[in-house]
């Protein structure tokens, strides 16, 4: 219940935050909403020596449409994202995170930087082929979702870098479906499948499928995507594609779900997510 001691600094600017992180070294962590970090600290599974609070930094929030996509500030709360229906699948997935209180505090940047493959947003970012912008003392760079997630709770964000914004394509005209399976609505996903589909004349022109909690990182169901692309967007081809949803995955087993059960769930949920997406594509 009681976190270990740490030093605390409230950054007045992004550059101050970056500087503090660099000086703090390996054990320095950013604090925004804190809803990924503080639960771990309370169980003493994490014990950073320094927390750099960027929770109130100006310029890191906001949700804006820019050109063909969306810019979502790192400090945007899950509740704000969920309340922006135009974000489509991102809004839908954000609305399923934990519970209202958590959504009122947790931020999209924090969730992605945490890199938990059981969280909702990483696989959605991957399915959308979105990216994040990170800034360090050496400047700013963009990391695609594919580049971002390295391993279980490990990302390509370097120590001393701050995730400042999230960029996702608007995918106007695409259909989307999000299917999350958990025991209770407040729980993490046992498995979740995010699907976006573009159709023309009843044929699937493009499809991207993200898998949550099916490995140490969020995954794409590439075999299922390949099976559906170019096929009629009907029940039969969706069912055939969904059968491929767990190809190449090696999900971690836990008390509630064996690897077999997770693979089975991925297939079932994939079919449902594609059906959902097809219905509005």
């Amino acid at each position, binding site marked *: 219940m009681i976190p270990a001691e740490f030093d605390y600094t409230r950054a007045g600017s992004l550059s101050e935050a970056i500087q503090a992180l660099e000086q703090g070294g390996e054990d320095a962590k950013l604090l925004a909403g804190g809803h990924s970090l503080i639960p771990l600290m309370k169980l*003493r599974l994490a014990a950073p020596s320094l927390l750099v609070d960027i929770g109130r930094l100006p310029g890191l929030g906001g949700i804006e449409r820019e050109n063909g996509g969306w810019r979502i500030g790192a400090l945007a709360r899950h509740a704000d994202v969920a309340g922006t229906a135009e974000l489509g699948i991102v809004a839908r997935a954000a609305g399923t995170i934990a519970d209202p209180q958590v959504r009122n505090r947790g931020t999209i940047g924090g969730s992605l930087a945490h890199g938990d493959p059981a969280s909702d947003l990483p696989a959605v970012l991957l399915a959308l082929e979105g990216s994040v912008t990170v800034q360090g003392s050496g400047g700013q760079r963009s990391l695609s979702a594919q580049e971002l997630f390295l391993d279980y709770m490990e990302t390509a964000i370097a120590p001393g870098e701050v995730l400042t914004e999230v960029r996702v394509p608007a995918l106007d005209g695409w259909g989307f479906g999000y299917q999350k399976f958990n025991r*209770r*609505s407040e*729980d993490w996903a046992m498995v979740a499948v995010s699907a976006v589909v573009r159709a023309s004349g009843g044929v699937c022109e493009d499809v991207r499928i993200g898998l949550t909690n099916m490995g140490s990182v969020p995954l794409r169901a590439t075999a299922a995507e390949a099976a559906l692309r170019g096929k009629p967007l009907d029940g039969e081809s969706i069912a055939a594609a969904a059968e491929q949803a767990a190809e190449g995955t090696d999900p971690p087993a836990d*008390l509630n*779900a064996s690897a077999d059960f997770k693979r089975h769930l991925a297939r079932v949920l994939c079919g449902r997510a594609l059906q959902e997406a097809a219905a509005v594509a």
Partner: protein
Amino acid sequence: MSATAETPHVGRSLRRKEDPRLITGRARYIDDIVLPGTLWAAIVRSPEAHATIVSIDGSAALARDGIHAFYTSEDMSDLGGPLPLAWAPPGVEVQNPEHWPLARGTVNHVGDPVAVVLGDDRYAVVDAAEDVIVEYDPLPAITDPEAALAGAPFVHESLGTNKVHEWSLAGGDLEAGFAEAEVTLERRIVNHRIAGAPIEPRGVLADYRAGAITLWTSTQVPHFVRLFTALLLGMSEERVRVIAPEVGGGFGAKLQVYGEEILSAWASRRTGRPVKWIETRTENMAVTHQGRDQIAQVKIGAKRDGTVTAFHVKILADLGAYNMLLTPLIPSLGAFVMGGCYKIPAVQTDITGVFTNKCPTDAIRGAGRPEATHMIELMMDQLAAELGIDRLELRRMNFIPPEDFPAAVATGVVYDSGNYAGSLDKLMEHVDMAEFRREQEELRAKGVHRGIGFSTYTEICGLAPSRITGPAGVGVGAGLWESAMVRVHNTGAVTVYTGTSPHGQGLETAFAQIVADKLGVDPQVVEVMHGDTATGPEGRGTYGSRSLANGGEAIARATDKVVAKAAKIVAHELEAAPEDIEVRGGKFSVKGSPDKGLTLAEVAGIAYIGAVPEGMEPGLEETMFNDPENFVFPFGAHACVVDVDADTGKVKVVRYVAVDDCGNPVNPMLIDGQVHGGIAFGIGQALYERIHYDEDGQLVTGTFVDYALPTAAELPSFETDRTVTPSPTNSMGVKGVGEAGTIAASAAVNNAVIDALRPLGVDFINMPLSPMRVWQAIEEAKG
């Protein structure tokens, strides 16, 4: 003398007297109480399931700023004895290893306490506890109860066995019953381990000064805690005061004398300062006693026409690492009602208790009786399917008929009253089976597997007649009577002291309603005091659905004594006979002359001025110890409708209808509330909750992340109704209702899931009905 109130409060849904302090955040729970100079306690606990303690080094902890003391079991050699087991069944051998507030020599489950750190600050003591270095030499972890029974390795090496005890309750000729049976069915029924999980964890604040100690503790049983604190600390009982402040739920988990209570009291005496320990949820999941955990081989025999002839249950109870207050007794509580609400000539229950390297079990809401209902009600459904008889029809033909009551059943107890067909009839007024079957067909066509399950139950509660449960009977080392003291003040205001210890049941309101009617006053001027051993008579606490039928009866009868005395005073004043005095319209008056009479305030005035009839004591206050003649046996019929997603195995309760009979209602709103919570508790066990240890004895479900209490989003609203069959065992005709919902519910859910899955070839499945288990059962049935 008779009491006739024109508008009785009993029977009405008065909103609770308790609530104003609770809804405004002004209630005082244990962690809200602050004493100057308090030392915080943090307990160092074993990460090992089973190990020898090689060494404990607290020097680094003690070296920290603000840390004042560090203790291990070696420092506590002045303790008067180990923690209590209060069950000694005559003629039964019970293995009872010593269980200390801090472990001596070995640790036997994850979370076993090893040392305590005391310091000024809530946060700093947690840091210091992390600095304590304990070296363990691991021993084999024993986690499978069936393997444990087979032989070595042993949880307690010195015992040379893992078997705790064997206990049987048999009635009727079992052999003849099965010989007469034309059909015999056997099932292995598992009732998995669960947590009580009150939302307020436990906590203790101990304050020793000048030879006396005050112990605030979040408990259901302050008087038991006082007794054992006095005994173990070698103090005279009157020097120990135990106070249960506002208690944030118990569910049996706080029916205990816990090591932390003794440890905190001891540490306060040792340091001369108040000591406060507040349990974290993670501690609570590991060390607050758990419940259920039975594997049963269940056998039912019947004739082809459906007549049940014999019922035999062999229970292996995984009791965990130690015996706590009532640990090995708990499965036995189910044995008395193992035959449920059916007329079965032969019923036998054989219980074997076994030690494992897990947290001890003890009473958790229902305590033995949910397990019993679960077994008989699952078997009735299994039998109906086997015989091709409608499951409700099968129940009806075996119900003990209303004219049989009071009904002596095979297990040796006498069911006080019942009308089982009546409650099932009432249930079916709410459930249209023809409509349900149509709905079920339609949904199946859409891939949704809907099922309906029933549970017709009775249970045994109102603990307890001392002659049956006491040392010479079942062997509980205490009479389980209950006490009350009713004090009318000078002004006619009333304070009631109860030996029960309510923690959410609404007894301050229900008891006030009872007293108000008898005395002709408003319930608002009746204050109910509880949970403080320094006020009122000796008491026994709140558990076993006992508080109304036993504690309420004590209050009713104490109040009757007050009324009788008041009547004499009034008769003296009005020159009438005491037997002609009645309470009407808020006055004690002579029958037929309602205008002339005295209010309670006027009577009290006379009593305290001392102008009482010659030979009468002044004052207006009476005490009553009620030892019930018999238990009470609430009953009812529940129906549960579930939808099973056959592709994922997920079960959702879509409808739940409960008809319960707890005798005459005192406050219907409170009854419904108890039933709602009980149902959710049963659904929680059936579908969501499970305490699980891995084969190394590590607790896998050690937080509220993994131990899945259902939320509002998982449950439907419930439909409740009642029948009223008064109990003849007490003057109010009431029965308990705190556990009934839980006792009924898990079987209704389990039967509903089986009903849903039958078309898929699944005709039996055990709890917990988690998605993976349901999916696996469907897959296995596919072959």
